[in-house]
């Protein structure tokens, strides 16, 4: 046999049509844009603290290197740094979750918010807060007292994963996932979970305003008042999801021609689905449990990236880790520059952006959807 030519295709770097941008180049562009937005996010705010030197010193002091800044400035720097760190993790986790789900379900319309995973995580987090936040005795759990973000995240994850499996099981007939059924089940799950959430909130609102405030946060996504613990939590959840990527990236590429086809090629499709759905649920749960429901990041980012670099998950999923934070933090920065920190939370911003985007996606694919 003759040696392979230099133009031979590679599994790791598929030969893409020429109009596509090389993933490395796009990563550089996104990374640069993200760096600019991170710096901007550290500078912009209601308090005047835009001197990069002082911000840098404040950040070093935060890490225990050097003297802290005078007065309230150190607090402001730390507050903004935590906010940025949380936003980076939340954006990355949501986009990665969406990218994984779109791969498993072989459909661009899938995302954690649309098929109900985010709502499930939100319900889990709310119940977690209720049970662990003083309501334990109501449920007969005397030992579980005190608020613990880790346990809230764990509750969010269990619920997110349960919803992911429920939705997948309901939308699967004869070993095949039906996308229309998936989306309809998503609607039903979102409505049901929404009702349950409202019931939980109403019950809590009646008795305790403090608790109700904490619960409301989970419904309208926010990046305000986050602590280091929150930032760490979302990054740990995200790291868990990232660890799964080498085991599913190429396999999800093979899913693109249908699950049965992938199975025929030797893919353990059940294992890949389990790993990818778990990772997607973990990432979504981590994001939702620290920042509440922020819709559409998981829909928009993987979709746009796929248009630019093509469908190979080995490029697509890592790029989601840059694209997600870029969208979330970029929109957040824009909001603060334009409205000067008005009460327009990131969750609201994303819904305003994402809703029309979803409609646009439906319109573009109208012909294909009508044949479902």
């Amino acid at each position: 046999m003759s040696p392979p030519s230099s133009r031979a295709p590679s599994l790791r770097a598929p030969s893409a049509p020429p109009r596509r941008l090389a993933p490395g180049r796009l990563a550089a562009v996104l990374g640069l844009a993200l760096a600019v937005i991170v710096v901007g996010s550290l500078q912009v705010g209601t308090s005047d603290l835009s001197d990069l030197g002082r911000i840098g010193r404040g950040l070093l002091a935060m890490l225990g290197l050097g003297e802290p800044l005078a007065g309230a400035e150190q607090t402001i720097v730390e507050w903004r740094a935590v906010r940025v760190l949380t936003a980076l993790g939340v954006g990355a986790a949501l986009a990665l979750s969406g990218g994984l789900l779109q791969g498993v379900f072989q459909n661009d319309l899938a995302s954690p918010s649309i098929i109900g995973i985010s709502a499930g995580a939100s319900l889990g987090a709310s119940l977690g807060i209720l049970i662990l936040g003083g309501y334990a005795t109501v449920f007969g759990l005397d030992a579980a007292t005190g608020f613990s973000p880790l346990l809230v995240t764990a509750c969010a994850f269990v619920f997110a994963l349960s919803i992911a499996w429920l939705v997948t099981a309901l939308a699967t007939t004869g070993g095949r996932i039906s996308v229309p059924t998936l989306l309809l089940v998503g609607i039903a799950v979102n409505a049901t979970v929404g009702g349950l959430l409202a019931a939980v909130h109403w019950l809590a609102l009646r008795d305790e305003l403090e608790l109700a405030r904490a619960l409301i946060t989970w419904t309208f996504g926010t990046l305000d008042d986050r602590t280091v613990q929150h930032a760490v939590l979302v990054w740990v959840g995200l790291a868990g999801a990232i660890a799964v990527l080498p085991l599913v990236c190429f396999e999800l590429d093979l899913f693109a021609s249908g699950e049965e086809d992938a199975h025929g090629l030797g893919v353990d499709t059940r294992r890949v689905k389990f790993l990818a759905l778990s990772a997607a649920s973990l990432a979504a749960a981590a994001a939702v449990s620290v920042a509440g429901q922020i819709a559409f990041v998981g829909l928009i980012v993987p979709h746009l990236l796929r248009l630019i670099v093509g469908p190979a998950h080995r490029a697509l999923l890592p790029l989601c880790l840059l694209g997600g934070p870029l969208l979330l933090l970029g929109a957040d920065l824009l909001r603060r520059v334009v409205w000067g920190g008005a009460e327009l939370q990131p969750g609201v911003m994303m819904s305003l952006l994402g809703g029309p985007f979803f409609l646009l996606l439906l319109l573009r694919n109208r012909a294909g959807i009508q044949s479902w």
Partner: protein
Amino acid sequence: MSAVPLIGRSLAHEYPGPLRAVDGVDLELAEGELAAVIGPNGAGKSTLLKLLCGLLTPSGGEVLLDGRALGKIGPRERARRVAFVPQALGALPEVAVAHFVLGGRYGHLGRWSRSTPHDLDVVRVAMEQADVAELGERSLTRVSGGQLQRVLVARALAQEAQSLLVDEPTSSLDPEHQLAIFTLLARLAEGGRSVAVVTHDLNLASQFASRIVVLAAGRVVAAGTPDEVLRAEVLEPVYGAHFRYGRLPGRGGGERPFVLPWSG
């Protein structure tokens, strides 16, 4: 006597609903054999192939791959031993044809799915054999139906499996490529592979197959050489159509039967 790597015993399968798609089929696929599976629409031909390659789990009976129960063999090893060429794909991914064919190497790849120069070489040879070498850079969404069928064959060849199960590979090919695909399958069988091909083309089956298996309502109703099967007594109870029968010189000397659906 040649080895028999793939054996189906008393295979049965039911889809939701009252009908049994496959109902007690025995089939042995020997090394160096090209078996054609024919039968009317809905006879269970595709279901039988999917049972034999593990895409469907039989509700009765068992499949033995190299003497081992198919269900006990892991998916990657299974893909190295038996390759399936589907009639069509669930969806067409927007990837380059060469990358798609490389998917056939999945069962051979290591833990992190990294391809080696050998994998790329196998892909190149497979694409040449299936006559799709010139399509390597093209997106799979931009190939014709006939080209896609040859790409699917190329991908199965890249699996380098002993047994090759092919589901209607010529349904959207022009006569030239129909002959080319069957010539390729026959050559693979002559090289020692075990090939089973589902087809509606009785004459391609006659020319190239060493054995023809006739399936009707999920059961094997006849099996044998083209001369034994392509006869009015066998075909007309199954197809209910009237055929004209004749003989023509075949590949490698000797005559082969042909049949022509002819009304009136």
